[in-house]
């Protein structure tokens, strides 16, 4: 199994080729004039501001919700809620934008109430557009993910801690500070920077809900430079800035906060502090509110759906594209999972040897695609390949390859904790028993199976939502469902577009639910009791 020595060069060469493609195409490599333009600094400032606020708010709001889920294991439909959280994260921005506009826009369902509230208390009328709209959309997409991860992270707190706390008669504040905070701090920090990077790269949402040129992110500037001005030096300068700033921040924080080790899992009873009726009521309210917040944007789109009548031709087109989308995404997701597995090998070795720096280095390489601007990667590769390969014929292969590359970081981050945990618990035993690779795998697979399938679901739906890469490498006979939606939308057929979006969403949802369902097909937790293995273990992960 020396596949990882192939995996690293492969993903690194993809990025290098992209940058090489752009650098060798432009005559000059770097546009220093841009660095003297105050415009550049104002958009950099805005990008940082909105990303930081989005990340802080998402995590800040997620913490009380996750704690509620954790402390009240008997909440109705909790499993469904957690899956739904994942769905919000992968919902195409097109749907998020229309949903929020239908809900909170000038003629939105909620707007009359918001207006009267704002008029009474703030002497101002409600306005979705501006920083508020950007933040609402970013929170809507990322907060649910944070809830999920923090919830799963809280589950790693050993029961003994709670028992001890109750014996020592710690009050709520002390319990929070001594027991929960250490767990929240490490996962919260990672989540903060993960969401920060995602919002840093945000584009369509920022422009659509931003309200004017004051809301411009680096990604907008890259798009403009690369596409409208075809100014490659400028695009490269912006891309380097993005890599340095987003990447630098990301790596710094993962380095500072990413070293908490998973506690060894034990077969335990789930023991939670007792609650008084008031806090139970409060929990129910928080839970119900969270459901509302997540569901409302989707519900507000339903009325538009009932107006549309799809012709048989449209249905066939949608069905055909859906089939293509699913097939491409399945291939990309399987490739990404295999690649992630290979990429994780040296990381696991380094972790076993407690070589922190080496581990960090490998991890940075394995997940670098997260911070590289996707647009630059795909355009760069396009520029490199166009004179060399018949892209009309083979473009679709690069749609798959690039999609694979872009979801690898998610797969790596999600698989990592479980694999490290396996090594920590069983590596010595496996070595002392001199297990063959095959036998070892037989033990390892059941241990990682659940998280493996859940991750597969996530990367699958992420790849299914792609438009950016398809817009560059795709061709009409391979039209994917998201691309078809954009096609409808850009020729007035907005009802068809929203119906097709719903079909896409339903497809994503069914994949997520199916794969999650499969992972918990074994005994589900009975009251106050978990089976030997926790149903879903995501641990110290980002996605």
């Amino acid at each position, binding site marked *: 199994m020396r596949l990882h020595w192939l995996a690293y060069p492969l993903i690194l060469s993809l990025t290098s080729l992209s940058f090489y493609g752009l650098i060798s195409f432009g005559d000059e490599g770097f546009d220093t004039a841009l660095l003297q333009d105050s415009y550049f600094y104002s958009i950099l400032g805005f990008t940082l501001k909105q990303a930081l606020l989005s990340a802080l708010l998402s995590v800040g709001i997620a913490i009380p919700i996750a704690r509620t889920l954790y402390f009240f294991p008997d909440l109705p439909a909790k499993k469904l809620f957690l899956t739904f959280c994942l769905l919000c994260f992968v919902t195409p921005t097109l749907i998020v934008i229309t949903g929020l506009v239908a809900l909170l826009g000038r003629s939105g369902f909620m707007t009359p109430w918001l207006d009267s509230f704002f008029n009474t208390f703030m002497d101002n009328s409600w306005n979705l*557009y501006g920083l508020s709209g950007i933040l609402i959309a970013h929170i809507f997409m990322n907060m649910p993910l944070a809830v999920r991860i923090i919830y799963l992270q809280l589950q790693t707190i050993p029961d003994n801690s709670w028992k001890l706390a109750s014996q020592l008669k710690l009050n709520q504040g002390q319990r929070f500070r001594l027991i929960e905070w250490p767990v929240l701090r490490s996962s919260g920090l990672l989540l903060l920077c993960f969401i920060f990077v995602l919002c840093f790269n945000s584009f369509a949402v920022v422009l659509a809900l931003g309200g004017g040129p004051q809301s411009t992110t680096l990604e907008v500037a890259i798009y403009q430079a690369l596409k409208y001005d075809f100014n490659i030096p400028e695009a490269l300068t912006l891309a380097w800035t993005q890599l340095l700033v987003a990447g630098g921040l990301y790596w710094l924080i993962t380095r500072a906060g990413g070293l908490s080790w998973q506690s060894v899992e034990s077969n335990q009873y789930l023991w939670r502090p007792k609650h008084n009726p008031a806090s139970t009521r409060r929990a129910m309210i928080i839970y119900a509110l969270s459901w509302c917040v997540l569901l409302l944007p989707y519900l507000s789109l339903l009325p538009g759906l009932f107006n549309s009548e799809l012709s048989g031709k449209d249905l066939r087109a949608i069905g055909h594209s859906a089939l293509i989308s699913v*097939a491409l995404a399945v291939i990309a997701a399987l490739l990404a999972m295999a690649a992630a597995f290979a990429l994780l090998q040296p990381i696991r070795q380094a972790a076993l040897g407690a070589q922190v720096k080496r581990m960090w280095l490998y991890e940075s390489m394995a997940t670098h695609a997260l911070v590289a601007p996707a647009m630059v990667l795909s355009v760069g590769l396009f520029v490199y390949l166009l004179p060399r390969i018949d892209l009309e014929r083979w473009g679709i292969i690069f749609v798959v390859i690039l999609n694979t590359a872009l979801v690898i970081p998610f797969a790596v981050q999600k698989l990592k904790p479980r694999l490290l945990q396996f090594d920590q618990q069983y590596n010595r035993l496996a070595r002392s028993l001199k297990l063959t690779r095959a036998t070892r795998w037989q033990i390892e697979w059941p241990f990682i199976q659940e998280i493996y399938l859940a991750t597969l679901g996530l990367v699958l739906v992420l790849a299914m939502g792609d438009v950016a890469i398809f817009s560059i490498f795709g*061709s009409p006979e391979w039209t994917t469902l998201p691309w078809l939606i954009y096609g409808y939308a850009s020729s007035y057929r907005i009802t068809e577009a929203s119906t097709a979006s719903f079909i896409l969403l339903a497809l994503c949802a069914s994949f997520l639910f199916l794969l999650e369902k499969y992972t918990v097909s074994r005994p589900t937790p009975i009251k106050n009791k978990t089976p030997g293995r926790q149903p879903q273990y995501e641990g110290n992960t980002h996605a």
Partner: protein
Amino acid sequence: MKKLFAPLAACVLATSAHAADLTVYTYDSFVSEWGPGPQLESAFEEQCQCDLEFIAVDDGISILNRLRIEKDKTKADVLLGLDDSLTEVTRRESLVQPHGVALDGLKAELQWQDQDFLPYDYGFFSFIYNTENIVDPVTSLRELIESDASVIYQDPRTSTPGQGLMLWVKAVYGNLAPAAWNQLATHTVTVTKGWWEAYSMFLEDDADYVLSYNTSPAYHVIAEEKNQYKAALFSEGHIAQIEVAAISRYTDNPELSKEFLSFLISPQAQTIIPVTNWMLPVVDNIELPEVFDHLIQPTRIGFTPKQVAQQRKVWLREWRSSAN
């Protein structure tokens, strides 16, 4: 699993067909099944007894970018879907050659003299409103900007209509454009990346006016039987977007390319394009659905492609620093 991959395999085989006699680069919505592409293709193939292939990219600007990358290795014989704001750059990078098609059949209003680019449809940027919400529409750009009516338009950095509005404000206000942008910003709902985001927000009733084309109402009447959407006629005149075709400098088949360009402005093609691409025909006396007679007919103002190419960056900077 086999069943799943059968259609995919079929697609691979379909794409690997031999090179066509005439390869046309165009944008995606042109060749979508509801766009003009399929009908034009079968009509032209019947006429020339040859094989025509469309290669579709994202949009007009992507056609240009693709040629810039491919240079002499391009497969394109004809470029279809650039607009008048891109003609200067394309010419400057010597990517096209004279088309040699007679221009005297074109509408006089277009005043078209360009020997490299041939128009095949056009439209006027216009603000669309819903008559159920607006009873007294504004009658000039000044009135709109000085009003407090809510407006959604597209970002001039990332979209063609947005760039159209930028030219429009510049043409009407000249040096006073920054103040006008500033005033417009006070009642601008938002500025979107592309056309459809703005238009779908407008259809959700999120603005009184949205920037689009004077032909937009025709779509609502013909495809949806909705009469409430109208374009506002502005007394200062409107900026036009003229979509053009050109022959690639590197084509192996200039004769067939020229034949295709002539076909584009033939009555047959000009009857297909308006009701599939939702723009106006470039020649007179084309039989069109009745709704086209009721569209507003603005006077044309604006700049030459050369002026646009020279000033675009400055104007963009002006917009971005004053439209806050």
